[in-house]
């Protein structure tokens, strides 16, 4: 009888999986898998007609190791040159019942607490000076809704006292700022606490500019433009935006970027570090609003630095950690002492799409493990004594079954505590969140624009701690 119960449970899980993700593949013919290096390098952008003849999702098959991820940029630049910033349409999955359910579910959960009618008789003399303290404790989306209550509530973002109240409220879950394939110049934001997607109508970033999020700290996100020329800092929730002064380096090769706050809040300012494969690096200090070159990379660090550009840098206690290969491992930079260190850490076998993350001071590795036709998302923790990766968790098996026999690519959004994983193969883009400390895997509802039905493909992004008053 126990076996029967287990069988029932398995059938239930499979049914849920099919219902959520659609049961049949499309009837459109697909060209066979391309060889991995078919795209041209950066200086030969493909003419747009070529792009149309190829299957749009092909950029999923870019091989990170040979640097052809630069071709991601060539695709965007080609699209940009055609005058249209709209990306190519990916395949439309069959109508997803879940998206409507998700939206209704989202709405009702937001109103469960409002069944309490509040009597004006009691609350009409509510003291002015307590409003800010209450508003600072509202969910972020609610704050924006209540801006239309009155002029005072609309101008709280500029209020110093309101800023102080916000600083006193404990931080919850981070949000995720994502760039979708469909619309490269404005982000879609995901709130994991309410499992809701938000699509700001006014982008915080200037239009006609393609920038990608490369790092974040506190409520601020750092963007780098496609050509790796300029840095921009932005609070995705407000219009606060700043272009950083130009770097002193004139050659714009690909760089890895790390960002951290000075101290616990954004009030103390922040620092940004970029490092290139040739060992050149610079640090930006927001307090001084300038870049400095603190010195040279020590000779002990093997050059060229084959940096893993798809992995975000991790910040722990004033030190930034970057992932590299050849030799496989980590390089770290201590912002206070200015010292670079190198750690040789062999990569796990059959690993693809690795990325660093951290949780409570522990350095983690997230990546795909592919063996024969099976693919699984795995989590490793760095053993500091032995400098080896130790597997500590895996995505539930039943979810991994979906990837069986498919070529899967993964992008990890966020690098601390709560991560969003975007898993892509030819027909699908699955999104899950992973909480490193609670080891909880959760499905993320599809990203659908308001009044739309098509699920957006998540190209890349980062996590940030939503803060109304962080100023770039």
């Amino acid at each position: 009888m126990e076996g029967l119960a287990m069988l029932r449970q398995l059938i239930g899980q499979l049914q849920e999986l099919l219902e959520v993700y659609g049961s049949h593949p499309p009837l459109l013919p697909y060209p066979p898998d391309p060889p991995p290096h078919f795209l041209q390098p950066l200086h030969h952008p493909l003419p747009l007609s070529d792009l149309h003849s190829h299957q749009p999702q092909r950029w999923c098959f870019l091989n990170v190791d040979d640097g052809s991820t630069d071709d991601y940029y060539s695709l965007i630049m080609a699209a940009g040159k055609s005058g249209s910033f709209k990306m190519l349409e990916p395949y439309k999955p069959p109508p997803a019942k879940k998206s409507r359910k998700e939206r209704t579910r989202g709405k009702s959960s937001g109103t469960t607490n409002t069944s309490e009618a509040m009597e004006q008789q009691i609350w009409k003399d509510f003291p002015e000076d307590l409003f800010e303290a209450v508003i600072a404790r509202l969910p972020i989306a609610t704050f924006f809704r209540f801006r239309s209550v009155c002029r005072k509530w609309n101008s709280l973002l500029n209020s110093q006292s309101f800023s102080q109240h916000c600083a006193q409220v404990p931080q919850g879950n981070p949000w995720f700022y994502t760039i979708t394939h469909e619309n490269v110049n404005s982000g879609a934001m995901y709130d994991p606490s309410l499992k809701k997607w938000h699509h700001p109508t006014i982008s915080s970033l200037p239009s006609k500019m393609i920038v990608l999020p490369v790092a974040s700290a506190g409520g601020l996100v750092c963007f780098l433009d496609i050509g790796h020329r300029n840095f921009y800092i932005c609070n995705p929730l407000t219009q606060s935006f700043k272009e950083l002064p130009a770097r002193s380096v004139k050659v714009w090769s690909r760089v890895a970027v790390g960002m951290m706050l000075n101290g616990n809040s954004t009030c103390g300012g922040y620092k940004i570090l970029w490092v290139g494969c040739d060992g050149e690096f610079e640090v930006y200090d927001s307090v001084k609003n300038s870049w400095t070159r603190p010195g040279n990379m020590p000779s002990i660090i093997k050059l060229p630095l084959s940096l893993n550009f798809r992995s975000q840098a991790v910040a722990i206690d004033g030190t930034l950690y970057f992932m590299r290969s050849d030799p496989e491992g980590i390089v770290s930079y201590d912002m206070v002492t200015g010292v670079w260190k190198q750690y040789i850490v062999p990569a796990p076998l059959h690993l693809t799409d690795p990325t660093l993350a951290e949780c409570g001071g522990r350095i983690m590795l997230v990546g795909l493990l592919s063996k024969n036709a099976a693919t699984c998302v795995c989590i490793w923790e760095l053993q500091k004594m032995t400098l080896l990766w130790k597997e500590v968790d895996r995505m539930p098996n039943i979810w991994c079954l979906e990837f069986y026999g498919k070529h899967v690519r993964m992008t990890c959004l966020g690098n601390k505590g709560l991560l969003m994983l975007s898993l892509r193969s030819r027909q699908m883009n699955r999104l899950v969140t992973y909480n490193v400390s609670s080891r909880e895997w959760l499905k993320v509802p599809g990203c659908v624009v308001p009044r739309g039905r098509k699920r957006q493909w998540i190209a890349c992004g980062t996590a940030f701690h939503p803060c109304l008053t962080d100023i770039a």
Partner: protein
Amino acid sequence: MSSSKSNKIVKLESSDNKTFEVEEAVAVQSETLKNMVDDGCANDTIPLPNVNGKILEMVLGWCKKHVDETVTGDELNKYEADFLDLDQADLYGLLMAANFLNVKGLLDRVLQRVADMIKGKKPEEIRRIFNIKNDFTPEEEEEIRLENAWAFD
């Protein structure tokens, strides 16, 4: 570590003339009372004309619970959660008292409770409840609504 003041009693009188006697360690959970004690003004009964007896008793109960070393973390959490199971009039009174007496932990909890009560409401309801005048023109209000429409999704 015993303090020479540990047996000192603080006397309080509510707006409806009820008197309460509590140990100093309990009273100083309130920053307001702590300042009075530190300034040497707490030797006689302290009048609290803006806090009634019922509410003052609640606040002092909170303070007592928080200096009781026999209470576990879980018990305290449950106590704090149950504490706010009040009708609106009492909740409002508690908020005013916690603000005036500046009992930080209690004030945080009550403020969060109020935020939770209003978070699902529409702006028009907020104005009605708190008697806030809508000082936007209809055009301005519409503009702000559109700007922030993404949060309404």
